[in-house]
């Protein structure tokens, strides 16, 4: 009750302009093609709400595709310089100290407000927090997470590919978000669930009013109508059980793998796929250690010393992707490694996205067939 407000829609643009003063405002914008992408917002009116899912997910603001981590200063005597002059790196901060060892930490300390995020993506970030901050804490993720405020919007009109409803990761969240908005036509129903979210709303409290009974009624109605609009109702529990019961033999996965193009599109667009590779890049005055997105679907992903390829068969790599999300995520974190955002269904050219495969497995279970 306490952390709920009403924001009139004609106040939204003013609120966003105020938020932009605290940090970079990121929102869903329509790209030159038709895709929706999360980018820095220049004109507030360009933000597209009630649009199809963005590609990729906003995970790129916590785990960028290209993420410089460290930089070693190179002196004339130390390391071999490249014979050809390289372009000057965009990541140099000349004034910053390289410290005693000559290594500069390229930590991204920018403050960001990401507006218009979907509930499924917020659920994914909640899981990413557990993965990146439990055990060894990933300092780059932690720093960005700390400096990012997420304002999510309840999906009143889910896409045909969405199936968060079967996984409890959307379209409306009870917890785990900073600020959640529900579109009630001429106003937003606003909820806050984190200290940062509460602080943000209270900092500009004159924009917000307390909800009245009619607001709660409308909010509930919108919620009911949204849940009724889902075209896909998929549970991942049945495929999980089929796999654990050993009812899916290699033949099944071979058929799936035959439809895999190994493009890695599902991995790049998935809000929960986070594998990265690390590489060193040499510039005239320094060497940078950079991490980049990587994918388990590529053959070289597990290449070991001496050229041994443990997952040389494509079937093993395809299966690994599903096993990780359907079996191993629940085993370790007690939740599926899928939030039902449906992006893999949009991207996959072979139509072996999570929802399709889960449905195929369920079909086998119902027909009592075994592959």
């Amino acid at each position, binding site marked *: 009750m306490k952390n709920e407000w009403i924001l009139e829609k004609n106040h939204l643009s003013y609120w966003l302009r105020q938020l932009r003063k605290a940090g970079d405002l990121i929102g869903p914008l329509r790209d030159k093609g038709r895709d929706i992408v999360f980018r820095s917002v220049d004109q507030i009116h360009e933000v597209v709400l009630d649009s199809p899912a963005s590609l990729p997910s906003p995970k790129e603001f916590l785990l960028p595709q290209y993420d410089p981590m460290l930089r070693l200063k190179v002196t004339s005597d130390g390391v071999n310089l490249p014979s050809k002059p390289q372009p000057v790196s965009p990541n140099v901060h000349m004034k910053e100290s390289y410290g005693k060892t000559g290594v500069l930490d390229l930590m991204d300390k920018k403050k960001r407000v990401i507006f218009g995020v979907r509930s499924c993506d917020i659920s994914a970030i909640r899981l990413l927090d557990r993965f990146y901050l439990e055990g060894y804490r990933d*300092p780059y993720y932690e720093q960005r997470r700390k400096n990012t405020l997420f304002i999510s919007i309840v999906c009143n009109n889910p896409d045909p590919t969405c199936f968060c409803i079967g996984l409890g990761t959307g379209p409306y969240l009870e917890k785990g978000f900073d600020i959640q908005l529900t579109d009630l036509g001429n106003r937003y129903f606003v909820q806050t669930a984190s200290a940062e979210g509460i602080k943000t709303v209270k900092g500009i409290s004159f924009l917000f009013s307390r909800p009245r009974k009619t607001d709660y009624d409308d909010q509930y109605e919108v919620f009911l109508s949204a849940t009724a609009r889902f075209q896909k109702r998929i549970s991942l529990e049945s495929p999980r059980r089929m796999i654990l019961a050993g009812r899916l033999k290699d033949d099944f996965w071979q058929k799936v793998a035959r439809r895999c193009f190994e493009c890695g599109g599902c991995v790049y667009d998935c809000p929960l796929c986070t594998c990265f590779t690390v590489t060193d890049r040499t510039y005239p005055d320094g060497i940078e250690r950079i991490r980049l997105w990587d994918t388990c679907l590529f053959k070289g992903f597990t290449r070991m010393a001496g050229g041994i390829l443990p997952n040389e068969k494509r079937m093993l790599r395809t299966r690994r992707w599903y096993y990780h999300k359907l079996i191993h995520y629940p085993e370790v974190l007690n939740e599926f490694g899928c939030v039902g955002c449906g992006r893999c269904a949009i991207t996959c050219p072979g139509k072996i996205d999570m929802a399709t495969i889960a449905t195929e497995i369920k079909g086998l279970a119902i027909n009592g067939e075994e592959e």
Partner: protein
Amino acid sequence: MTNGKNIYLPVNGKIEEIIPQGRDVSLFRVRTQMPLNYVPGQFFMVSVWGAGEVPISVTSLFGADKAVELCIRRAGFVTETIHSLKAGDPLWLRGPYGNGFPLEISKNRDVVVVAGGIGMAPLRPLIEWFMKKPEDVGRVTLLYGAKTPEDIVFRDEMEDWKERGIKVLLTVDRADECWKGHVGLVTGLWQEVHSDLKKATAYICGPEVMIKAAMGELFLFGMPEERIITTLEAHMKCGVGKCGHCYTGPRYICTDGPVFSYREIKDISIP
């Protein structure tokens, strides 16, 4: 040990000495300014700026706290670069990572150490540990297989090990004119082990096929699953369970391993 709070920030080490060990393999002694605090079975992410980072297991026993010995085979781009370095050159380290060998399970028991090729590297500190504490352990037998006599690592040290009571059995895949020892697989040497395998403990490291064969056979001989220990290798980029490369089944070889018992890995394909 990491440099400050950032787990990806390596510390600057200096190569003190490089000792060649057979073909394509050298032992690098690296000294740092900070204590390293490692135990046998753990590994370091070793890097040369501009070339990259690789996981390398510790080859020396703890105690040498600001220095570590790393036995490195020339196998790819980064290790090739490391082999081009000289004493005095910098080598960057972060770690140690991984769980290390369980030493308590071999207390007062006979021990069989099975190694293949460069797989000797992580097992060398174990042998040193058993020599340091002979009263804690029963009879120690080392079975070591290499491709050719030239590929045998720590050959000089093995003489010392023999003198100090370790039974060393060597075998090669291909002999040369001078070779008078065994020829064939390391798993063909079980009958030379004069220990009761049901009561003994085994530590195994080597190529995947060798590990699988040795573990399976020892289990058939009646050795309990939890006392058949191996250490696994995988492609790694972070060493801290984040990059996903070494993920195998529900486990990350870097943080859940690299040391596993047969019980833990018999159901999953290794690596």
